[in-house]
């Protein structure tokens, strides 16, 4: 359970980090919180020759809230993002998702941006990003580029980030007024990887009816699976056409069988948790509406 040897780099600035990454190319790997990378290295499932430690680039320890988005810097820890009241007021789903990420002790070191770049299909924050929409800001020695949430997750543990690029921040788009959200998941053990998890965002109108609905599912595909279920809304209030809802989800997910759960069981969880997340999201929207009205 010891990692193999590697060469350690501790750049003092972002430009320096980008130069080191450009020089190393495929041999280099960025180390942020390391809460996924270090155990992978200890189990020798990963053995990067060089690690570029960005933990001392304090200019990346940021959570910014504007009228249109919440921007999280590359070394903002999950716990900090989750505690940030302005970020919560702007996008409650950030905290709702984060509370499902492992345990508080892991969240004290793990970073939200790192979790997104790691692109684990069982991870919550990639699902939160695709659900809200937004961009990942990538920087390299040759400039910067923004990758849209929908294009960022390429496959299991694979993002659009190139080896010589550093993800400096992620921008989460704020949902419109009248929105509600929820995140639910089921794991074998509290805080463990979810067998299935579902985040939901719904829009409601002044009559408390759902006008739009989206879910993002984890652990049932190669990455976070975004499904727009708006067309399954039926009548007024919070009702969904259940067979239509389940069909929409089934068309998109592709759960696998592993030691923790069979594919059939994951599919069952996807159905149950989707309904539960949508119900909770609608209740959340109504509660927020009342709080604002009051």
């Amino acid at each position: 359970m010891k990692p193999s040897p590697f060469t350690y780099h501790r750049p003092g600035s972002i430009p320096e980090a980008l130069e080191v990454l450009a020089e190393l190319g495929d041999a280099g790997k960025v180390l942020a919180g390391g809460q996924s990378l270090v155990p992978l290295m200890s189990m020798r499932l990963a053995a990067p020759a060089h690690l570029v430690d960005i933990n001392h680039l304090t200019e990346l320890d940021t959570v910014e809230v504007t009228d249109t988005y919440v921007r999280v810097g590359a070394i903002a820890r999950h716990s900090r993002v989750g505690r940030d009241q302005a970020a919560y007021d702007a996008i409650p789903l950030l905290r709702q998702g984060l509370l499902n990420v492992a345990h508080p002790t892991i969240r004290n070191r793990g970073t939200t941006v790192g979790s997104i770049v790691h692109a684990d299909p069982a991870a919550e924050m990639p699902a939160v990003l695709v659900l809200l929409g937004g961009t990942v800001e990538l920087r390299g020695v040759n400039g910067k580029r923004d990758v849209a949430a929908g294009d960022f997750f390429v496959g299991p543990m694979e993002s659009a980030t190139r080896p010589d690029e550093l993800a400096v921040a992620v921008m989460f788009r704020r949902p419109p007024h009248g929105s509600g959200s929820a995140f639910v998941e089921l794991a074998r053990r509290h805080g463990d990887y979810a067998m299935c998890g579902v985040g939901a965002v719904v829009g409601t109108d002044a009559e408390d009816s759902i006008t739009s609905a989206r879910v993002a599912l984890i652990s049932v595909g190669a990455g976070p699976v975004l499904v727009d279920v708006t067309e399954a809304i039926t009548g007024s209030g919070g009702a969904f056409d259940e067979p239509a809802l389940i069909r929409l989800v089934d068309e998109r997910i592709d759960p696998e069988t592993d030691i923790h759960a069979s594919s059939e069981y994951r599919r069952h969880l996807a159905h149950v948790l989707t309904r539960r997340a949508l119900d909770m999201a609608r209740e959340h929207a109504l509660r927020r509406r009342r709080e604002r009205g009051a």
Partner: protein
Amino acid sequence: MEAEALVHVEFTVNGRPHELEIPARRLLSDTLRHDLRLTGTHVGCEHGVCGACTVLLDGDPVRSCLVFAVTMQGADITTVEGCCTPGGGMGPVQQAFQDCHALQCGFCTPGFITTITGYLEENADPTAEEAREAIAGNLCRCTGYQNIVAAVQRAAQLKQAQLKARDAT
């Protein structure tokens, strides 16, 4: 075979500054135990599941087996050896573990002590449910957790009493 390159790093453990030359791949848990001989920090699973190796990093609980010691440049680390009173006696969490019989074999205890010490800084008066959530990331194979949950609340009481006594003097 070429000798492994050493990296210079400086950080504080339990108030004492340390300067080390260590291989980059050395986990903080191993540095604490082998380089600094602070064997109070226990290593259980060594991949972030059991919580036995938890230490406080700038006051917040983290798994010492999930960080490389070389990344701790400038950090202020507290291990279970630092969770005592200034005079070296048992700290409130340690005292509560004794009062409530919250340990049996004791292997997981250092991780609980540090986790709870950090937690009481953010929640000074936890309910039983909050106490359970606070220790959810630590595994104990002996006790069945009931007495540990009780110890979290007992520690909160002891700490409050200590603070009051200090304010009174």
